[in-house]
């Protein structure tokens, strides 16, 4: 079983099932958070570099310091924490038996190949339309790969079947949208009922 950070990260690419199972058992949450936050910081910086930083009278460095660091790192960590919480609860509903820390670690490590999206982004920026199209296809393939790794991470962290892991992911993705829509509809209906009861148009 892989035992160190390099073993785990290499394993995510070369043998993801064993590597992610080992990560779920050892629970290196700090490393997982570092991968997620580092990836968010690099992606945010790369995205901003293509958004014309020279505009609007502020220097690029100021923008990076003011926006990428708090926005890309802290926010991504918070969103990741909440997202894994929802995924963990959904997994328990689907019969999972893992821990939050195990899932947090495994899904974090499963994001590692997403680092390759940055060279693809550079390729798209450098090349013409044909290379750009190739980069888009590559990015799509990479996204599918990372999603598949996420499903494997969930499966190994919670000891589920692949089907149950996929169902959990779909369910967990629907929950936040459903909750927000439900709250809005509920408040709107209450407001309507109150308005109708008061006789006001």
């Amino acid at each position, binding site marked *: 079983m892989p035992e160190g950070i*390099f*073993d785990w*990260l*290499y394993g995510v*690419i070369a043998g993801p099932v064993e590597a992610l199972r080992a990560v779920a058992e050892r629970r290196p949450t700090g490393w997982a958070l570092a991968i997620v936050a580092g990836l968010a910081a*690099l992606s945010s*910086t*790369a995205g901003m*570099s*293509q*958004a*014309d*930083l*020279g*505009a*609007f*009278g502020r*220097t*690029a*460095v100021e923008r990076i310091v003011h926006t990428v660091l708090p926005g890309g790192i802290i926010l991504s960590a918070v969103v990741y924490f909440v997202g894994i919480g929802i995924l963990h609860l959904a997994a328990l509903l689907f019969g999972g038996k893992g821990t939050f820390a195990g899932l947090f670690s495994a899904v974090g490590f499963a994001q*590692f*190949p997403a*680092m*390759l999206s*940055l*060279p693809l*982004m*550079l390729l798209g*920026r*450098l090349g013409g339309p044909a290379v750009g199209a190739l980069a888009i296809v590559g990015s799509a393939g990479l996204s599918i790969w990372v999603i598949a790794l996420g499903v494997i991470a969930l499966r190994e962290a919670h000891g589920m079947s692949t089907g149950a892991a996929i169902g959990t992911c779909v369910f967990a993705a629907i929950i936040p949208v459903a909750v927000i829509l439900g709250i*809005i*509809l509920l*408040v*709107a*209906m209450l*407001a*309507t009922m109150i*308005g*109708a009861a008061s006789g006001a*148009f």
Partner: protein
Amino acid sequence: MKKKVVVLGIVGLAVLSVVALLEMGPRPVDGGFACGRLGLPGNKVAVVYLQGPIAEGRQSMSTSATITPRLVEKYLDKLEADPSVKAVVLRVDSPGGSVAASQAIAGMIAEFSRPVVVSMGDMAASGGYYISAPADRIVAMPGTMTGSIGVIMSIVDLQGLYDKLGINEQIVKSGKHKDMYRRTLTPEERTLVQNLSDAAYEQFVTDVAFHRGMTVDRVKELATGELFLGSQAMELGLVDSVGDLDDAVNAAAELAGVESPVVYEVPSPIFFVNILDLIGEVRGFLRALTLTPEERLLWRLRNEPAPELRY
């Protein structure tokens, strides 16, 4: 060792890619490479799209396609603060709207410190023309519908609908004409409203004459509320030339003395939808579902903005 090389290689490749992307900056929009590199100013001609009716208020989900003074202020303030923007092209596509909002927007355009060129789209009529008039140059498509210089005000008389629904509205008022917009106008009140409209009309033609360098009498000859095609408007002096957006960009670059302009399409400001606005809109939708057609019509009419003069 092999594992370490692969992992560090991926991380290093990612970091190097970000550094390279930072160094290169955004892809030039329209040829050239004068802008985008970190911190370096360029020779940009900014293109701003102003589309929809002109109104006061702020953007929301239901009014996202509206030209408001607040929206124009956001655009122009940002562009004013960007030294790399040498000129601005406003792509106007509007049938007009509120008098006061049109005047506020026209004032902002007139005060902008760098050259402004208006490129007219399908329609820049009435208020759409009014906000275009202060530009340093106006370029219209041959088929643009423009002109319609005049003022209009419509007052909905709800009395018939009230009678049909059996609603007896009791009004207590202080001020002889306070309820004049809730019922049929008397001849005296019609004269009062006409005077308001005439005064707003005078403001319209005076401002157009000032900005376009025409006499008030000449503008009045054209200010019959009539629509003109872009090609006709050029012959009448209401626009400077006929052409498309590229021609307007070239005109702006020429006015700014820029040889190789980089076209910078200014993205729409992102309006965070206020949760209360969203609830209000959903609530309105749900309420509308529960009403009879007559009640829905009455509700809509009663929620119409107060009578206003419109360019």
